[in-house]
């Protein structure tokens, strides 16, 4: 399987997140998932399921405790993806 770069993950997240929030705004790596996007806990958990399927990885919910921004989430996914290969 070809390697996914961190940038690709970030880009995909920014695209996806637009559909997950009711607020019309640009999503950037620095966007805070909770305070900027007002994503509620269940939406975030559903996004995690989609990410798991997209990258064929397991993202345990307990690893999300340090995730605040889109960038944090991308870093976490990248790390898990690398270690699963």
């Amino acid at each position, binding site marked *: 399987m070809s390697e996914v770069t961190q940038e690709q993950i970030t880009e995909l997240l920014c695209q996806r997140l637009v559909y997950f929030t009711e607020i019309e705004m640009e999503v950037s790596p620095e966007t805070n998932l909770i305070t900027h996007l007002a994503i509620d806990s*269940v939406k975030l958990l559903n996004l*995690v*399921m989609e990410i798991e399927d997209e990258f064929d990885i397991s993202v345990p919910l307990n690893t999300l405790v340090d995730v605040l921004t889109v960038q944090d989430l991308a870093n976490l996914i990248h790390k898990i993806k690398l270690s699963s290969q």
Partner: protein
Amino acid sequence: MNLLEKLDAAAAARKAQLPEGVGAFGIPIEESYSATEARIGERRVLMLGTNNYLGLSFALECREAAHQAIDQEGTGTTGSRMANGNYYGHRALEREFAEFYNCRECIVFTTGYQANLGTISGLAGAGDVVLIDGDAHASIYDGCILSGADIIRFRHNDPADLEKRLRRLGERSRNTLIVVEGIYSMLGDQAPLAEIVEIKNAYQSTLLLDEAHSLGVLGKTGQGLVEQTGLNNEVDFITGTFSKSLCGIGGFCVSNHSQLNQLRYISHPYIFTASPSPATIASTRAALKLLREGSSLRERLWQNAHHLYSSLKTIGYQLGPQPGPIVAILLDNPRQALALWNGLMEHDIYVNLVLPPAAPEGKSLVRCSINAAHTTEQIDRVCDVFARLYSSIAE
């Protein structure tokens, strides 16, 4: 923001979301008249939002047992069973539950919430995995967090999705606890247990089934989904609560695995809390007897459930996927749900209002729950009111 300011901000967000909706939550009930009626303010209201599935909240046998226990054993146990004494009634109730499920072991907990907390955190730990349904109850989430295990969700009632996630885990699937519910508390649908059991066996995982809403409701003797599907020997651990069909408070876990007993020594939600009061244990024992013998109550309950479900469907309401004692009406937004809830209250009918994120899939719910004590006339009246309110919601 300091701690108190954060609470102020959360309260402001709550009030902004639904300014007139505040009264729907934590509604003050002044007096209970029966298993189906209560006083709210000055009104006599039909209760269609309790979990009193068999209608046993005023059962004479249970009240007498509770009175007697208070007179003979006092009002409380004042402490933990491990530290302050393991009373006869608690041990007897455990034996009775073990015998009811034909299981070797049973542990009684102080609430159903703690039964899930104590069982999940006792079974799984750091390095293990808990794989839970996407609509899992908060007590299951909290148990998973307390366990320190890796928490993964699968799509609600979707065995193929469960399998995909187990496959990804590789060898770790053997250290995985799968958690599902007999009847889901919000939509009222049942877990596809046979398929889930097949998958858990293929991946050598462990399965926990929470029968909180299905105890007394499903199966010939009321054991729950496990009895209805004939899968008693395939489910590793069953938890449940005394607070719903048994009309008490407390919870249990039963299993044929002798290792369950070890949880008494390691599970904080069992050890570091007081055991249920003697009155609670006594009424629960009496209620369990009524539940086991209650096939006519179950029949009545299901008649009522089908009656409400099919009538609301005919009117045109969008409902949960499957008829049952929990009949959930799905609405697109909180305002519609609140309007329906208010309309019902104006007609002296109390139901539950469930808003996102508590309701699944971003929907808002008006959640009705039926019990065996509701009369046909009461349900007819409810359906009548729902029919009258339909046009105001559909607009």
